[in-house]
Each structure stands twice: as structure tokens, then as C-alpha cells.
């Protein structure tokens, strides 16, 4: 182990964020209250610096660093960049909101930076331990962040629920990992992947050998057949072992040794799938797929809006990366198994998310269920289980975070001290109060509903196209039907904004940075919708597909 092997230069973005988070924590402790803005500016500077470093550290081919603990590849660069930028926008939207509510504290930004660091680690993880560490760093920061407004009952309740359920999910994830480790004796994702594919090859060999044995009564003939069969197979350890045993022993002895060996080896695969179920549950919880979604409505609703914004946006990208790292990098060979699990999660999420969202009166809760539905669509691309599908999902998750950012940004914009603007009816007559903001919300809502020419349409189109290519036409049909139902609650907001009379005429006030960022946010949604090719090409490029 030498320093050169660590490839530290490739991890400069993470190192910068970690260092700065500690520095800011110390500085903030000694800052007088009126200079609190300095914390904010330092944080934003750190994020921009990290973004630049991420762009600078863009490798031509995947690079392993820290003794293979982390990987820097095209996907990680793209996702990290989006994470850092999304967090940057989140902080812009949050500043005034926090100041108004007297919770403008350094901890928020420090926790935010640590959470960002956790996300970056998840994205770059090349080892099950790193996945888990990144996830915990992110989750713990989020729990604390939500509970920061400790006088608020709903916020503490939300944090508590999130924490307990999160601990449960982490436990399950860890349990799944330990199962995998038990079978494969490795945590490294490349090695895991090799091991997994050997085990599934073994499984094929075992079933064919079992069949050969059961076909003939005569032991000698059976062993001859088996020998003929196994010598042709090269990629399975068990086949080699059987061949050796047959060589070394006479037929009847060989049969006595082989039979129990087959039985014990065939269990390996079952245990692998058993572990896989727990891992899928772990990521399903982080994404918020039904039935592991219950924390989402309560947390979105209970947290202060700026915290909701943070929880709802960037971590989804990290969760997507976690799915890819574990299921694709680690267990691509098991895709026939995890496809089925993801289909189940996806269908349930699309149905439950879209239907329950209709019944909501609180827009944060409505957006929570909309998130659940979006997660269902996001999973469609992964279900396709090929590079095009993963690229489509990646496109979806990036687009989704941009839209969510705008939606919660609008809620923050409309709120003011003592008024949260989180009821759906608070959007009534927005067009009369301010047509520009109404248009921003219009663009975002249409995009979420998947109406062209907004980018949300292309995102849905991409995942649906992939899931149809993979042969699941019925799944696509179902997804589209529920997208129609889902359109209702997005369009209801539009209707309230444009066709109802406003209930209050208080002018909407916001700082220049906020107004500018929010406008840019909506215009990006529109612009990406008119020209989706660039982002699509980036996502495809991350999977080595050139257009």
C-alpha cells in the first residue's frame, strides 16, 4: 500500500467538502449573529469549488482509488456534479426562509455539507462498506437537520419517525450485506460481481448435473455422462471440482462425494437471493418505494420547507446511485431476480403514489406522494436491466430533482413569517398576484405531469421506451394509465392558480438571488424540454453509449 495507490487527487472534491465543513463549523461557533451570512457564503463557495473540482477530475476511464474502496467513473462525475449544484440551489432557496423563522444557524449548512459528502461517497462507492458509510453519513445529517427546529412539535415528530424507520431500514440493508459477505467472502463490488456470476453459473451446472444423474439408474453410466458434460464447461468452479473428483475416484465413490456437494452448493444461490431481498428493501426505503414509503409523507409534511426541499431533492440522486452500485455493479447477474422485486415496488409506488396524492389538501404532502409515484417511474428504467435503461433512469432522476427543487422553491417563495403556504389552496389566484411566478409553477407542474414540451415528458418517455424495449409492455401501459390519473392533481394546481380568485393579496417578496434562481430553475425545465438531446447524451455517455 503506497500513497500513489490511494489516488488521492481524484477525491479532492470530497476532501474539500470535508475540510470546509469542519472549518465552517469552527468559524461559525465564533461568529457573532449578524455575521451569520458569512457561513452561508463560505458554504456556497465550497460547493462551487467542489463542482469545479468534480469537473476537473473527469477521468477517461473508471479510476479506482483508496485501495479500491471508491470508484470515479463517468456516471459518478455526472451525478456528483448534479448533487452539488442541486444542494447549491437548495441553500439559495433556504436562506431567507430560515432567517424569517429564526433558524438561520450554521449547523444547517454544516449538516448540509456533511450530507453532501455522504451523497458523494454513495455515488462513488465501490465497496459495500462505503455504500453503508455514505448512506449513514447522509441519513444522520438529515435526521439532525429535520429536528433542528427543536421547538416545533411536528418537526421533531417527523425527525423521530424518520430516524426509527431509517434505523430499521439500515439494519435490513446491513443484514443483506452480511448475507452477501457470508456467501462471497468479499465486500468489494468487482469481486462480489465475479463471485455472484460464478455462483449463478454453478447453479446452472448443478441443475444440469442433477438432471443427468436422475435420468439414468446406472451409477457408472450417470457418472460418465456427468464427466462428459462438466469437462466442456470452463466458467464454473463447481464443474472443475466435479471433474477432479471423478478423475480421482471410482464411479460409486464419486457419486457419494458429489451428491451432498451439489445439495450444499445449491443453497448458496438461495442465500444470495435472500440477501438480495434485504438489500433491495434498503434502497427501496431510501428511494421511498411502496411499501417502504411511509416515512415520506410525514417527513415532507412535518419538516420545515427548506429541510423538506433538501431531503426531497439531492438524496434521490444518491439513492439512485446506490441502486446502480449495488444491483448493477455488484449483482448484474442476478438481474432476473431483482427485476421481479423492482417491478413489484414500481407498480405499487405508481398506483399508491398517484392515487393517494389526489386526496391531499397539503401541497407538501401531495408532492410527497408525487415523489413516491415518480420513484415508481424511475425504477422502470432500471427494470429494463441494460445500459440504455440505466441511462433513462439517470435522466429521470436528474430531471426529477430539478423539478422538485422548483416546486418546493415555489412553496418557500410564497411563504412568509407565520405563513407556510403549504395548503393547496394557498396557490389560488396566483396568476392575479404575480403572473411570472404562476408561470414558473405552471411549467413545473406540467413537467411533473409529463406534458410536452417540458422535460418531464422526455423523462417519462425515456423510461417507458426502455421498459417497452425490455418486453414489459403491460407495465408501460399501466404506468401511462396512472400517469393520466396523476395529471389530475398537478393540473388542479394550475386550475387554482389561473381560474380561482386569490384569497390574499399580500405581495410576494423575495431576494434577487432567490427570484433569479427560481426563474432559472423553471426556464431550465422548459429549455431542457425543448432541447433534451444534450442531457440525454450526457446520461447515455455515462453508460458508454455514444449518440
Amino acid at each position, binding site marked *: 500500500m503506497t500513497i500513489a495507490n490511494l489516488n488521492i487527487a481524484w477525491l479532492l472534491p470530497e476532501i474539500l467538502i470535508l475540510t470546509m465543513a469542519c472549518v465552517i463549523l469552527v468559524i461559525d461557533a465564533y461568529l457573532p449573529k449578524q455575521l451569520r451570512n458569512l457561513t452561508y457564503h463560505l458554504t456556497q463557495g465550497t460547493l462551487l469549488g467542489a463542482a469545479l473540482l468534480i469537473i476537473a477530475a473527469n477521468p477517461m476511464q473508471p479510476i479506482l482509488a483508496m485501495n479500491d474502496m471508491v470508484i470515479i467513473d463517468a456516471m459518478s462525475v455526472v451525478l456528483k456534479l448534479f448533487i452539488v449544484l442541486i444542494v447549491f440551489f437548495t441553500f439559495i432557496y433556504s436562506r431567507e426562509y430560515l432567517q424569517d423563522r429564526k433558524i438561520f444557524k450554521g449547523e444547517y449548512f454544516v449538516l448540509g455539507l456533511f450530507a453532501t459528502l455522504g451523497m458523494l461517497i454513495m455515488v462513488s462507492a465501490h465497496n459495500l462498506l462505503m455504500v453503508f458509510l455514505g448512506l449513514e453519513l447522509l441519513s444522520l445529517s438529515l435526521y439532525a437537520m429535520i429536528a433542528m427546529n427543536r421547538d416545533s412539535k411536528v418537526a421533531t415528530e417527523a425527525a423521530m419517525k424518520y430516524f426509527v*424507520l431509517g434505523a430499521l431500514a439500515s439494519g*435490513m440493508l446491513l443484514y443483506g450485506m452480511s448475507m452477501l459477505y457470508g456467501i462471497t467472502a468479499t465486500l468489494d463490488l468487482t469481486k462480489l460481481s465475479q463471485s455472484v456470476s460464478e455462483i449463478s453459473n454453478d447453479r446452472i451446472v448443478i441443475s444440469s448435473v442433477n438432471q443427468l444423474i436422475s435420468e439414468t439408474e446406472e451409477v457408472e453410466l450417470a457418472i460418465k455422462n456427468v464427466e462428459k458434460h462438466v469437462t466442456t464447461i470452463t466458467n464454473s468452479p463447481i464443474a472443475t471440482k466435479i471433474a477432479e473428483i471423478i478423475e480421482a475416484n471410482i464411479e460409486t465413490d464419486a457419486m457419494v462425494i458429489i451428491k451432498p456437494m451439489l445439495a450444499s452448493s445449491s443453497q448458496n444461490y438461495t442465500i444470495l437471493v435472500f440477501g438480495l431481498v434485504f438489500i433491495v428493501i434498503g434502497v427501496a426505503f431510501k428511494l421511498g418505494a411502496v411499501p417502504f414509503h411511509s416515512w415520506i409523507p410525514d417527513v415532507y409534511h412535518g419538516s420545515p420547507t427548506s429541510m423538506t426541499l433538501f431531503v426531497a431533492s439531492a438524496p434521490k440522486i444518491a439513492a439512485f446511485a446506490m441502486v446502480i452500485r449495488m444491483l448493477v455493479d455488484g449483482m448484474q447477474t442476478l438481474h432476473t431476480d431483482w427485476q421481479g422485486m423492482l417491478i413489484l415496488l414500481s407498480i405499487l409506488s405508481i398506483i399508491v403514489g398517484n392515487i393517494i396524492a389526489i386526496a391531499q389538501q397539503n401541497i407538501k404532502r401531495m408532492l410527497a406522494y408525487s415523489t413516491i409515484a415518480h420513484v415508481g417511474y424511475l425504477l422502470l428504467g432500471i427494470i429494463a436491466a441494460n445500459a440504455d435503461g440505466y441511462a433513462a433512469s439517470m435522466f429521470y432522476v436528474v430531471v426529477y430533482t430539478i423539478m422538485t427543487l422548483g416546486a418546493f422553491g415555489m412553496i418557500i417563495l410564497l411563504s412568509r413569517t407565520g405563513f407556510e403556504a403549504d395548503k393547496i389552496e394557498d396557490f389560488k389566484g396566483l396568476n392575479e398576484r404575480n403572473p411570472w411566478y404562476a408561470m414558473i409553477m405552471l411549467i413545473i407542474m406540467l413537467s411533473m405531469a409529463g406534458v410536452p414540451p417540458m422535460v418531464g415528458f422526455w423523462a417519462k418517455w425515456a423510461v417507458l421506451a426502455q421498459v417497452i424495449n425490455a418486453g414489459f409492455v403491460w407495465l408501460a401501459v399501466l404506468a401511462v394509465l396512472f400517469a393520466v390519473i396523476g395529471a389530475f392533481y398537478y393540473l388542479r394546481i394550475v386550475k387554482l392558480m389561473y381560474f380561482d380568485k386569490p384569497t390574499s393579496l399580500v405581495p410576494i417578496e423575495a431576494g434577487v438571488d432567490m427570484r433569479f434562481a427560481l426563474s432559472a430553475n423553471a426556464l431550465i425545465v422548459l429549455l431542457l424540454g425543448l432541447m433534451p438531446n444534450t442531457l440525454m447524451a450526457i446520461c447515455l455517455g455515462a453508460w458508454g453509449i455514444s449518440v
Partner: protein
Amino acid sequence: MQDTLLTIVLAPLIGAIIAGLLPVSRRIAHSVTIGAVGLAFFLSAYVFYQIIFAGHAIYNETLYTWLVAGNVRLEVGFMIDSLTAVMMLVVTFVSWMVHIYTIGYMHDDPGYNRFFSYISLFTFSMLMLVMSNNFVQLFFGWEAVGLVSYLLIGFWYTRDTAIYANLKAFLVNRVGDFGFALGIAAVLMAFNSLNYGEVFGLAQAGEYKQTISIFAGHEWSMITVMCILLFVGAMGKSAQFPLHVWLPDSMEGPTPISALIHAATMVTAGIFMVARMSPLFELSTTALSFVMVVGAITAFFMGLLGLVQHDIKRVVAYSTLSQLGYMTVALGASAYTAGIFHLMTHAFFKALLFLGAGSVIIAMHHEQDMRKMGGLKKYMPITYWTMLIGSLALIGVPGMSGFFSKDAIIEAVHHAYDADRAGAWFAYYSVLFGVFITALYTFRMFFLTFHGKERMDEHTKEHLHETPWVVTGPLIALAIPSIFIGMFTIGPMLFGGYFSDSIFVAAAHNPFDPEHYHGFISFMLHGLIQPPVWLAAAGVGVAYFLYMKRPELPEIIAKRSGIVYKILVEKYYFDRFNDWFFAGGTRKVGTFMWQFGDVRFIDGFINGMADLIDWFAGVFRKVQTGFLYHYAFAMLIGLAVMLGAFVY
């Protein structure tokens, strides 16, 4: 070349954006748009010079691929040949003149910037249309000019009549555009391409789908169906019978618009399109006969309506309809060159007549009824003389531009008559007697306006004076080509093979034999012994007699002729019929759909579904109890189900 072409197209667009979307002053709005269109004009003149005189090869490039779906490519590209060069020159020149004229005409209007933005946008759209090298861009330009036309007819959107007129124009054009879109679809079906060059190449080589089965069992000639459908588009845009009804009403728009869009440029888009598609139309004599007969009906019967109008602009409008009919007849007789030639001369003298009429209207304080005019000659000498030039050009006095083009058309139809083309006899007599009618209504308008008793009220009379130079300047600028352009261009355009690179005429159909042409003077002398000139003279004579010598006679004739007069005043009852049958019928069907389909079916079924989902939502949301242990329990159930389903 590419940069020049892009500048020509984009300059008016940028001008339109600046004047329309930015908060600029009136002065900047008109300076920018006039400058942009002027630039487009000068560059068009340069392109014209390059293509025609400097022998530049035909420019045909695709600049941008918008979308590829299967083997359909939607592209943006330019094809510049002699036909395009002429159209570009005409469009930019007339547009430029109208821009300048507008400063005077719209001087007091609150929508000043909006107006300049629209007409610049129109120039952009029209250039996109004529410069296209494929059917999709043609369709884009086609629809874009239609849109601007709609916006401009309804420019004074507080007037009910304007709103009625622009809606009418839009709806009638929709009928034509539907045919046009089907025609483009037929092109794609037959040739598997939308690029002009490829389509025309395949058409000449005969490599296309020959028949189409619209009703099972009946095979139709593909090319005939395609050409007639495309021509239906032209009928809408160029206001041919029976889709002509929108054009007279379009005079509700400001006069510069009538001159620019509804006389000189947009309405000729249909003529241009058919000429551009000549390689296709030449393959179907059936379609050509259809074109010829439709044109003939329009030329003759719409001219008649001009006789009974009192609104000065409407007279010019019906005259436009009739002249468009002449152009269409020319197309049907395979004399595409004559059609385009008449299009060009007509653009100048009809824009002149409209702007002259506008000048009169300004002087009369926006009074348009000719019964309240008369004797304006002494008040407005420039307008008078330029209008006289326009009128003489319109009726085809030998030597004026209109003479050459109209005579060429009549000659061509005569040729088709000799060749025994179906419907040619009808077309021949229609265009021949049309000449008499043209002269009659033109000079009726002229005499009523400028000569005879002064019938306006005292107040108007006191303020009568010639209009400012921004109005008269364009009149003079348009009067010059109205006189001369015919004699100088007839040789190369009709007989000199000027359009040989862009218009294709089957040898047997070609009406213009260069061997029989001996310069424009002999053409003129030849014209003197032909009936059209004498019919035109007779028309002027009758007008003089009826409106100068015996002004009481027209009314008596109107009363005596009873039903005939009524039919003319009612415009052959087309509007009544359309209102009753199409508008009324559609409303009836709509009401039925609403009462039965919407209220009964949709509200019942769909709302039922919606209620059901709403009910489900109400039930499901109760699952979210808020209790932590319920949530944890849900997770464990999920775990159990997944283990059960996927492990064992």
C-alpha cells in the same frame, strides 16, 4: 451565399422581435423594421443579380435537420433558383414600401409597434415559404403567413366586424390547409421524400407509386389526387372559388395589410406553390383542367361582384379575386411562367391601387364609401395620377405592365383551347369577357372617386389635402414598375427560358414558342388587333357613359334587373349558405355532441371513474395513520411478501 440568405430571412424576424417584444419607442420600432426589411430587399436584389445575371448555380442546401423519424426527415433548407429570386424580390420590395407607407397610415394608432412587428414577421414567414427546399418548411411558411394574416385582419380587435372577418379567414383557410396537408402526405406516400429536388427527380423518372386506393376497389391516379389536394391548399390561400369568401371580408384589416398580404404577396402563395410544383402538375392533365376551370370561375364571376360594391377597398378586393383567377387559369393552361409574370406585375399595380385607395381613405378621414366621394382629382393630384396608372395597368392598356401579362394569359388559354384541353373553352371565354368586366368596375371606381360631383360633407371637404410623402412616396415608387416592368421582362420571362431551371412544362403543353416572339413592341402591335384590348376600351367607355354622362342610370338599371342585382349584392349567397350550412350545421352537431356525448356519456362515465378513484384515494389515505409502529409493520409485511415471492 448561405450567410446572405440567412440574413435575408432573419433580419425581418429580428426586426419583428425587437418591435414586438421589447419596450421600444415608435421611432425605434419603425426604424428597425424598415431597416431590416430594406436590408433584406437589397440582399434579395443581390441574390437576384447573382442567380439571373452572374450565372450563379442554383443554390439548394439543407441547413438544419430538425427531426428524423424513420425515413421522414424534417429539415430547414433553401432552394434559390430564378423563380425564388423573383418572388424574393417582389416580396421584399412590396413589403418595404408598405413598411414606409405604414408610418403615415398608422400614425395615430395605439398599436403602432405591434403593427410593425406583425408585418415584419409576415415578411419573414413569406420568405421562409418561397425560399424553402422542402414541403415541411413550405408548410411552416404557409401556416405562418396564415397566422399573421389572421392577426392583422383582426388588428383592430375591438371591432366586431374585424373579429368576424379574421375568424372567417382563419376557418376558411383551415379547409384549404387540410387539403394541402393531405397533399403533402400524398407526396410523402408516393415519393417517400419531402425534398423538392428528390421528389421532382423521381417524378420525372416516373419512379413513384402510380395509384392510390381511396375507397376499396377503386384505383385512382396518385399524381392527380396529389395535385388536386395540393391545389385545394392553393384555393384556400389564393382565395379561389369556392374558398374565396374570406378575402373580401379581410379588408377589415388596415389598408397596408390589404396591399401587402391580401393583394401582392400572401394570396399569391398558392400561385407560387403550383408553379413550384409544375413537375408534378404537368403529369396530370385532369388536375390541370380542374385548376383551369376553378380559376376561370373565379376570374369571371368575382369580377362581376366588383360592379355592385360601394366600398372602395372592396372593389379592389374583388378585383384581386378576379386577377388571382387569371393567374390560376394560366397555371391550368400550363402557362406557369405567365401566371408568375402576372403575379409579379399584379403585385406592383395592385399594391399601388390599394395604397392609393388607402391614401384616399386617409384624406377622407377613414371614410370608405365611394358614394360619399367624388371630384377628388383637384385635391390629391399625386394620388390621382398614380391611381390612374394603376387602373390602366389593371385593365391592360397596351404598354402597361398588366397588358403584357394578361394578354399572355389569354394567349395561353387560347393555345390550350386549340389543343382541346378539357374545360379550356369555358376558361377562354371567361377570361376574355372578364377583361370587359375588369375595365368596367375599375373605371367605375375611378370615376366615382376622382371625378364627378363632390358628395362628401362640408367638414371633410375643408380638410381635404394630399397625403404626406411617406404615403405618396411609395405610390410613386410602385407606379414606375407598374408601367415599365412588363415590357422589359416579358421577353426573358415568357420566351427567353428564364424559368427553365425551375419550372417544368411538358413540350406538348408549352404555349409560348420563342420563334413567334419578336420583341415587346410587336407583341403590343399584335395585341391591338386582338379582342381583349377592344373589350377593355369598351369597358372604360361604358363606365364613362354610366358614371360621368348619365350618373342616374346605374340606379335605374339596378332596379330593373331585380333578381340578378340581388344575387350580385348577396355575393351569390355564398356567405348566407356558409353561415346556414357550415356554421349553423356545425353548431347543431356541436350542441348534440355536448348534450348527448358530453353531458350524458362523458360526465356519466368519466366522472364516475374519477369519483371512483377519488373514493379509493380517500380510503387509501387512511393507511397513512401517523403511527410509527404501523409504518414499521408495513415494512415488515413488505419484507415477508418479498421473501415469500422471490426466495421460495
